[in-house]
């Protein structure tokens, strides 16, 4: 039996176990078969592709300008002209929803990129070098762990002020710990392998070993983590927007739209219901794809599927 080195709880609420010998990408066929075998995962993929398409072509898809107020059309109910009605400023809700997908994706992908690069580097350095670097880095990460993500993000956002850029930074910092912990565990176990020792004796540099030998091994669990994290980042961004820290007007973000529409719950419930549904659908899609990736990459389930 492979030895478990790290248990992490995905922010989508499932336990992810990380094992000493992770699967390699050489098993591409098995991966593809498993990944594509579940319809729900495909369903998630379809939603994600649609989302990316929507975000990329928002300016062609949106029927109206999402930013310019048109006070004479304020708070219209859903009609053929405005499928999801208009907000207090007479802006088309559907158009804002479409533009909001850009915000959601930007927040998700950029935060994940920042957090994973920093988190992975810290984890590998800590695990590979050990000693004082290990202690410093891992204690720092431990310090961030007791904070719920939204609380940490709220704190960082307070520090930096509102605005979409700062929200991205806040969420990046708040999500570093899981990446570090996972790669730290992997680096610790891999560096004892004979072939790494052999590489060392052949004169390979530390950097080369970390990049060529440890990093690729960390990819499968990290990819699972990233996919699951994307969903929770979008949720957290929505939560922050709801608390009033987020995108600046007139920008469109789903969480802020829920919050803004909430005031008009009695007049036009669709204003806050529609963006909420959008958040749900996208987070759902990310989780499903993450689940699919985990099944396909997790050795524990090998042979069972």
């Amino acid at each position, binding site marked *: 039996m492979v030895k478990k080195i790290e248990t992490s709880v995905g922010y989508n609420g499932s336990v992810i176990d990380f094992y000493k010998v992770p699967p390699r990408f050489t098993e591409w066929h098995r991966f593809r078969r498993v990944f594509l075998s579940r*319809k*729900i995962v495909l*369903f998630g993929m379809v939603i994600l592709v649609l989302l990316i398409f929507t975000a990329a072509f928002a300016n062609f898809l949106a029927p109206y300008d999402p930013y*310019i*107020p048109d*006070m004479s059309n*304020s708070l219209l*109910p*859903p009609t053929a002209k405005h499928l999801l009605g208009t907000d*207090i*400023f*007479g802006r088309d809700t559907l158009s804002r929803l479409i533009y909001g997908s850009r915000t959601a994706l930007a927040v998700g992908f950029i935060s994940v990129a920042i957090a994973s690069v920093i988190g992975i580097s810290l984890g590998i350095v800590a695990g590979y070098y050990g000693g004082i670097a290990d202690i410093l880095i891992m204690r720092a990460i431990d310090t961030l762990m007791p904070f719920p993500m939204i609380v940490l993000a709220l704190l960082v956002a*307070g520090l930096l*002020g*509102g*605005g979409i850029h700062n929200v991205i930074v806040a969420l990046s910092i708040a999500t570093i710990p899981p990446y570090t912990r996972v790669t730290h565990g992997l680096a610790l176990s891999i560096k004892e392998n004979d072939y790494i020792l052999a590489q060392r004796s052949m004169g390979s540099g530390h950097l080369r070993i970390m990049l060529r030998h440890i990093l690729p091994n960390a990819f499968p669990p990290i990819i699972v983590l990233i996919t699951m994290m994307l969903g929770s980042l979008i949720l957290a961004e929505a939560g922050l927007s709801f608390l*009033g*820290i987020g995108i*600046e*007007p*007139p920008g469109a973000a789903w969480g802020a739209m829920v919050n803004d529409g*909430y*005031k008009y*719950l*009695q*007049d*036009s*419930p*669709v204003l806050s*219901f529609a963006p909420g*549904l959008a958040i749900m*659908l996208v987070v*759902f899609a990310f989780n499903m794809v993450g689940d699919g990736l985990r099944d396909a990459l997790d050795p524990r389930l090998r042979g069972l599927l």
Partner: protein
Amino acid sequence: MKIIYSILVITLLLTIAMAGCAEKTTTPAATSASPPASSAAPSVTSTAPTGPQSGGTLRIIRNYGVTNVGYPPNDGGMEQGQDVTRRLINWDEKGNVVPDLAESWKEDPVNNTLTWNLRKGVKFVDGTDFNAEAAKWNMERLIDTKRLTEADKVKSLDIIDTYTLKMSLTDLNSQAAINYGWVAMYSPAAVKANGEEWAKTHPVGVGPFTLVDWSPDNFVNLKKFDNYFVKGTPYLDGINFRVIPDPVSASAMMEAGQADLWFDAPTKFAADLEKKGFKVNWAVTGFFWGLFANTANPDSKWNNKKLREALEYAIDRPGMARALGYGKFEALTQVAPKGSTGYNDGYDPRPYNPEKARQLLAEAGYSKGLQTTLLCSAMSQDYATAIQANLLAVGIDAKIDLADFARFNSMYMSGFFGGEGFPELAVGMVGIDLPFATGLIRHFGPTPMTGILSINGAKSPEFLALCDKLYNTFDSAELTKVTKQSVKQVSEDALVVPLLKTPWASVMAPGVHDDSSTAHNVVWNLNNSWIEKK
């Protein structure tokens, strides 16, 4: 496959449920025709007024506040001090200063004295007498802790007799009675007996109510003080304040009959409830919103008056009031709302005129438009969005900077304690709800007390001279005239773009009689409020 199917079904059901709900609400005629049973149409109109009835506990919703109670030197009593004690003066609904714990006062500009004649027979809740000694103690406490406005002008406080207190001042100005009369009176005996720490959370005033218990940001319970000096009042047995920060919840609680009175309801919700048959008091005063441009920084482009004038011409204030105000906002033409002392009839120096704005921009050398930033907070976010669109139409590209309250306040209140100020434009509220000279001086005078120093650069010598005159005019007719002139001068200098006046509204459940908030939003008095017996 089954899972996808199930999810689709659930999503579909949710959507249908929402659509169903949506349909119900988007036909206002239907809802107003058949209001929910609990929000029965008021029966007040049909019953003949029989006069106030005693008894009952009033359940009041507040949106915020109740962060601390206690007596003023500890910065308590910010909110509920209104109901547990009185001040020397008060305001009536027209904004006139009227006696309260002081029966009368005498200003002597020659000798620079202010003499208070106090009301007789007033008792504190702890049974001790309110007299000149107590008034002096309260004032001294505020002077010692530097909590009294213009405290440095007070030379001495002398007790002439049991109910007369004379203040000797270095110089008496027309606002002295307001500044010094705005002192809430608490029992010296109670504080001396129990200590400062205790007093921080235990206000002992003269009534009409007295504190039972409270919890910050949650509730305050008050009960009637039986020996209140206005005999026969208060009518209510008690008051139960609850803090409900969310207006949707608050409004629903009113509709469901879970509350009797909603103080300072946001305009939208008050207007909606009014349509549903609730009685709403729209107070004459409210908040004044303005667009400020930084002129304190000598390098600021806004020191060019033409640019500031262009701002004012660019903004469609009547349009904003219509779109955001539910028929309750007043589009301002000057820094005084209609009906206030300083209001100049028919004065509208810069009505909406985008053409003129563009022309002024060109004259100022910005024919290609300009880029700027607009600071706002969550409270002014909607106004900022509307302003941004207006400005964009004339070629001013303003990027909105939505700040949390902490950052907003530290920038908006800039200059006060070395704050960095707002760099370009800010949309904010000033409490120039006081329909008289004090408000004007407080917010726009040479050293504004609210700290909006970022507009100081635009103040002309004429305006500063008028401020000086305001301080030294004691005749009330003359004071009104000078106030009007000052208001005009603010526009002449283009100090600020007056935007909107948003009303202070209180919503009453059927059977509740309350006009406490019609006078002034910083002064309310629940002494005369009552509830009809069912």
